[in-house]
Structures are given as structure tokens and as C-alpha cells.
């Protein structure tokens, strides 16, 4: 029965970290994929970081292998970071080469530290979700494949984070990353009249952000197609209005410039650069092409320590579209709420 709480901290920390809890004084990156922490007790802790399958999906078969590696190299513990990378903490220095070779044999590339592409994060998409407008896991697999060199080396201007969400619910955190992909629907939600009985109609009407759903007689609703912004809010609240989307309607938006830390220009939510690209499985060549253009333009033009968002803030959006060669669309000007007018330009300080 639930009610026991989380496993205790004392039992779930590697002994090396328990001995040096709160005593760390500095860290450095001796090579890509390896981090070294120094403690005031004189002990050092080496961490080896590896990429994971997109969405951190592993079979029990693979997980057992990871457990064996952890037993052999890092005192029986491994860690999954916030960005879903696999970390072995407290690896003895002499064993690092062996561990990297072992991980390579298992098919896990080592890297993703410092000024490199960090491991991608995405939601489950087509694998297990009824709202997905795209499959971010497959896109992230293609992106990781394309930027493998950037993952394994650290020559980029700053760290690069790429995330993907399958729909506007943003479970995959597309909007938090330097470059994010977010699945977008373009169809109106259906109304399956037979199932409406099971729905809480006042809730369905109130969750719509734009008031596009209106009551139409007792037990029935109608959708104002002009207003709909194709977010899946009603499809989440009501089984009669799911699934939303179709093969030709669904697609991918690309957002850029998200960032969490308070350094540089501070935390920011990513902004829409490309409002729609079609779904093209299995490799999503349009999406990966657009991401490649952004990464290459950023790499070539950004100053040191400049994240993607900070680079755009410095050069401006006109230069961003010029440098990347991405198509411009008026859909990127916000018209959603009363702040809308501020997103259009109100000065003539142009960068030609």
C-alpha cells in the first residue's frame, strides 16, 4: 500500500558522496563527458556522462546491463540527470577509459558536458499518448544522430540544449530549451455526440483559453472555428472531443532561445521561430534541417558563453532569420492576448 514515502537519502547515496556531503569546493571538465569534483577532504569524484535513448526509454534487458556496469565501476549506483543523461558517479580515475569503452560497446556515446550538445529531452509522443501531434522521440533520435560530433566534443560557444514536446501541453519541455520542437495541431477538435454524456460540459467550456466552445442547447456544445487555437485543452478534459488532429494537419513548430539559469540574460521561455513544418517520418528531414541551420548559424556567429537566446537578443530577430535562412511568417507575431500589440515593432531601429 502507498504511504511509505520516498526511499531514504542515507541508503541511496554512494559512499563517496556521503563522506563528502556539502564539502565540495570546485569542479572542472578534464575531457568531454567527464566531470571532476574536488572536495575539501582531498578526495576527488569523477563523473562519466553518457547519452540515453530518447525519452529515457529502456528495456529491462538494457537496464540490467546498466546495473552491472554500475556494480563494476561506480559502487553500485548510477544516476539519471534532469536532462535524462546517464551518469556514473565516483568512478576511479584508472577505470574511466575502461568505462567509456564498455559504454561504447553497449551503444551509449559519452559526452554532453560543458560547451556541447547536452542530452535531448522529449515526451513519449506516438509511443503512448493520445494527444501527440508529432513524435518527438523519433525526431530527437534523428537530431542526436545528426549532432553526434557536437555531443562528443565541446567546441560550441556555450552549452546547447534541445528538447521536444509532442503537443502544446509541453510535457517534453520544448519551450525551456535553446532549441525546442513542439507538435502543433491545425484541425478543429471533433465532437463525438455519443460520448458527450460522460463529459463535464461546464469544465470543457471553461478550459478553452479563447472561449471557442459554447453551449448549444442542453447537453450539447459547438465550436467556433474562427477562434480555435488548436490547443488540446478540450481534448484533455473530455473524451468526446478527442482525438484531435490528422496526418496532414499535424506538424511541428520550432521554438528557440529558452534558458533556465540566471546568468546572461536570465531565465527565458523559448520564442516561436518557425510556426509549422510537416511531419515526415521516420527522419523528419525538414525539422532536422531547420535545427541544423540554427545550430550552424549560432556556432558560426555567437560570441563565447552566448546561449542561443542571448545571441538572438544581441543581433535581433531580423539578423537571426538572415543568418539562418529560415522562412519568416507573420504567424510568429503574438495575437493571443492583450499584450499582443507589444510584439509588433513600434520603432524604426531596423537592422538591414
Amino acid at each position, binding site marked *: 500500500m502507498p504511504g511509505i514515502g520516498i526511499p531514504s537519502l542515507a541508503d541511496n*547515496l554512494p559512499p563517496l558522496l556521503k563522506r563528502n556531503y556539502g564539502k565540495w569546493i570546485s569542479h572542472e571538465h578534464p575531457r568531454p563527458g567527464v566531470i571532476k569534483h574536488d572536495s575539501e577532504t582531498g578526495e576527488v569524484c569523477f563523473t562519466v556522462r553518457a547519452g540515453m535513448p530518447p525519452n529515457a526509454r529502456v528495456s529491462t534487458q538494457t537496464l540490467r546491463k546498466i546495473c552491472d556496469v554500475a556494480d563494476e565501476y561506480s559502487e553500485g549506483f548510477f544516476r539519471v540527470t534532469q536532462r535524462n543523461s546517464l551518469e556514473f558517479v565516483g568512478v576511479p580515475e584508472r577505470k574511466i577509459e575502461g568505462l567509456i569503452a564498455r559504454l561504447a560497446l553497449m551503444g551509449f556515446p559519452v559526452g554532453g558536458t560543458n560547451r556541447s550538445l547536452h542530452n535531448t529531452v522529449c515526451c513519449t509522443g*506516438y509511443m503512448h499518448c493520445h494527444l501527440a501531434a508529432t513524435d518527438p522521440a523519433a525526431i530527437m533520435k534523428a537530431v542526436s544522430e545528426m549532432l553526434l560530433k557536437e555531443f562528443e566534443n565541446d567546441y560550441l560557444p556555450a552549452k546547447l540544449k534541445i528538447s521536444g514536446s509532442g503537443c502544446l501541453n509541453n510535457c517534453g519541455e520544448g519551450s525551456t530549451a535553446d532549441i525546442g520542437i513542439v507538435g502543433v495541431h491545425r484541425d478543429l477538435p471533433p465532437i463525438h455526440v455519443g460520448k458527450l454524456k460522460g463529459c463535464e460540459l461546464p469544465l470543457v467550456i471553461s478550459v478553452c483559453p479563447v472561449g471557442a466552445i459554447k453551449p448549444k442547447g442542453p447537453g450539447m456544445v459547438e465550436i467556433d472555428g474562427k477562434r480555435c487555437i488548436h490547443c488540446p485543452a478540450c481534448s484533455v478534459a473530455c473524451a468526446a472531443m478527442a482525438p484531435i488532429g490528422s496526418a496532414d494537419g499535424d506538424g511541428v513548430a520550432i521554438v528557440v532561445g529558452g534558458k533556465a539559469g540566471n546568468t546572461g540574460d*536570465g531565465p527565458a521561455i523559448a520564442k516561436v521561430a518557425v510556426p509549422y513544418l510537416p511531419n515526415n517520418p521516420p527522419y523528419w528531414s525538414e525539422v532536422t534541417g531547420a535545427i541544423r541551420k540554427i545550430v550552424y548559424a549560432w556556432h558560426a556567429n555567437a560570441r563565447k558563453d552566448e546561449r542561443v537566446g542571448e545571441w538572438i537578443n544581441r543581433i535581433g530577430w531580423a539578423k537571426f532569420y538572415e543568418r539562418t535562412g529560415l522562412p519568416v511568417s507573420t504567424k510568429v507575431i503574438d495575437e493571443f492576448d492583450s499584450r499582443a500589440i507589444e510584439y509588433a515593432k513600434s520603432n524604426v531601429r531596423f537592422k538591414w
Partner: protein
Amino acid sequence: MQIEKIKLCCAKCGFTVEEYNASELAEVPRKTKRYKYLLQKSSICPACLASGRLKENRVTEEADTTPTQTADTKFSTTAPVAHEKHPDSPTPMIDAISQGVWPSHAAELKKTRYPVQMYEQALQKRTTQWGYGGYVSLPGVASGVLVRASARPDITKGSNFVRIMDPCGNFFKADSMRKICDISDKYAYGLLHLLSTGGDLEMLGIPTENLKAAVDEITKIGFDVGSTGDDYRTSEECIGPAKCDLALYDTLGFREAWYKRFLDDVQYPRFPHKVKCKFAGCPNDCVRGQQKSDFVVIGVFRDLPIIDQKKVKKWVKDGGDMTTACTRCPGGCLSWDKKNGLNIDGDSCLRCMYCINKISGVRPGGDRGVAILVGGKMRGKYGPMLAKVVVPFMKAEPPDYKEVFDLIEKLTEVYDANARKKERVGDFMLRVGMSEFFRLAGVEPSAHLFNQPRTNLYYHWEPEEVRPQNGAGKENNCTTTKL
């Protein structure tokens, strides 16, 4: 002895979703709230997947009888079947995704009993093949279980998963993970989502009739389930003092104390919508709390960063790039010359951690505490929003962090009492307005609460602010302050 029990059942198939003793329902306010919440809410029945209001049944039972499982197997999902191999591959798309150097999720799917045709067909048809689903309750398991129907009953009937709350610091012990593997092999597809973006471990593919047994086995090996529905979701924390030299408070201890105090609210949904809490050890915010979470506790320091000039000089000598560091400092407050070393201009320092991250020999300053930001979200009703500062600085005192937890509990109560159904904290703040939210929560005015003052003068005064009586309404105006 006879006991009166109140059971909340599915109106269609009669499956018991939750049950209470009548006496404890009257006495425990949290249970009363949860009971009222369940009665108002349209729930999904785990047995027949019908959504609708629950029906209340009052029954009198012998005190020692154990609650019986009434799941009707007729409606439940079938046990997963192994994927059959075929000479000319039935899964061309998945084969394409399985290739390459990067580890592939599709290759992992094939090693399990996951119905790969669901994924294959979705990729071929460019739409998802899954159907409606949602969070459900089972007797004794109020949160942590999700059911999902299938839009392709010819491939699979549906698929459920449980959410397991991860240990502090996301450290997984090899031994306990092997046990998780055993449970997953026994009951589920043998497929794990190691860390969801919410910070849980998810075990996919448990047939409905096995859900309860699987949850029992998971709790037997020391893990607990939770974090679905309208409760405090699993709180994420950065690795903190366990392996980081920058942590300004003990995030891991904080999270452990959090679960000791709020476990009920994590496992029994009763709020208007989900509430996500994240704990970041320093302003670098590795948990992305300012972007994602309703309540984020961030470690901050008030004194200037401490400079060890000897170490800094050594860093420069070893090839450290001081020119970039000085120009990229967001406050523009770093200056460096060989003789006097590094200097920080106190008035423009933002305490943003940039110099501390980049220059060896600069360490976070003293006078440490936490800042509390409220209302971040990724979607909600009005789109993504960054969390807003509510308390710029307060002390976090171990071991029970009472002041911080009391404040978060108070803010949650304000949200719970005033927000509409399915309204995230951020949406609630937008709807009522920041100053009204600050008034409801009793926030101290501070110049750290805003980037810049407003340009329009369209603001509202309450009558008691205009003519204060008995000191009421003093906090937010300056008419009574001597200038």
C-alpha cells in the same frame, strides 16, 4: 464490530474507486476535502474506462473484512503479448529508427512486450494510435496510476502505467533497480521510462487487474507511487551538496523533509489543478524550476561573491579567459588588472553566478537563504509563463524547514480557496492580478518583486486602504508612511 463505510463507485460498472470510514470522514479535514473533490470531479473508472461522476454507496461492514476487489475482468485490458517476428519486416519505420550510432528507443521497444505495431502504425499514418486516458484511483491508491485506451483495439486493448517517485538526487541503486526490472518483467511490458520530465520513474503496460498487485510489490521493495492528478506532483531537486560545489542550501535534505511533511498531499489529489514544486540549490536553476514549476525554492546569497585572488591569478596564468568573463558579466561589474586582481562592483552585481561558474577562485558569498517564486508553467490556460518572485529572501533552517514549508502551505491554501477548477497557480495569478494575489497571500512589499514599476496609473484602491481603520489595509499603501 460493525463499521459504516462510504464507498465512491463508478456509476456504470460499480467499481469502487475510493472508500472511507464514515467516522474518519467527519473528523479528518483533509479526507473531507478529498471526498468533496472526488464527488465534484468527473473521474475515469479504471475498470471500464467510462468517465463521469462517481456514485456514493453507504454500506455497513464487519470491521475486520478486507476490501474486496470488484474489478470486472470483462472490461479490463488484456495481458500484453510478445511481438511476433516476421520474415519480411512488418516494422519498416521502426527498423529505420533503430539504425544509427545513437541509442534508439525503437530498438528498446523491440526488446520488450510493448505492442510495436502501435508505434509502427502511428509513424506510418502520421497520427497517434492511442485513445483517451487519464489518472485513476484504486482503493488505497489515490494517485500514481494512469489508464490509456487504445484507438486500435485490433492491436492492443489499452495500456496502463504507474508512476514511481524517484529517490533523492535521482540516484538509483543497482540492486533496487534489478527488483524494479523483475516487477516490470512480471506484470508489465518490461519497458521503463527511467526519468520522466516530472521526475518519476514510469512502468508501462500493466493490465488493469494487476495494477493493485504491482503497486503492492513496488511498495514492498521500498518505492512509493504517486504524483498523478491534482496534487503536489513529484518534486524535483538538483543534486545539491551531494556532488555540487555551488549548492546554497541542502536541496536533498529539503526534499526528504518535504515528503515527510506533505506525503498526504502528494498522494491524495484535492487541489484545483496540479501543483509542481521544484528545489534548485543556486540561481543556475538546473531543475528548470523558474520555467516549469508552480512553486520553486531557489538558493540565493546576499553578500558579494567571495574572491580568492591567489586562485584567480593562477587561473588567468593557466590560460583562463578573463576578457570574455569581464565582458559577459550580465551586470558589467567585473574588472581585472594584474596588480589588484579581480574586483566586483557591488551596486551592479546581480548575484547571477556567472563569475562563480566561469572563474576558478570565485565562490558564492555568505548570508545564504532561499527565494520563493510562484506560478511558472509550461502550458496552463494562457501559455508558458516564468515563475514570479513572491519572497526574495528567507532563511531555510534544517532539519524541518518549518518557515518555508509553512509559507508554501499558506500559498497553496490561498490557491486552493480562490482558484477555479483546472486553473494552474500561474493562471490564477493572471486572472486575479498580481497585487490581489499578493494581498491574499499577505506578501511583504519589496522592490525585489518587480522588474520595473508600471507605466499606466489604472489601479484599484480598497476602501479600507483609503481610510484605514484599526491598522487594517496598511501593508500595501504608502499614504500612512512618513516620507
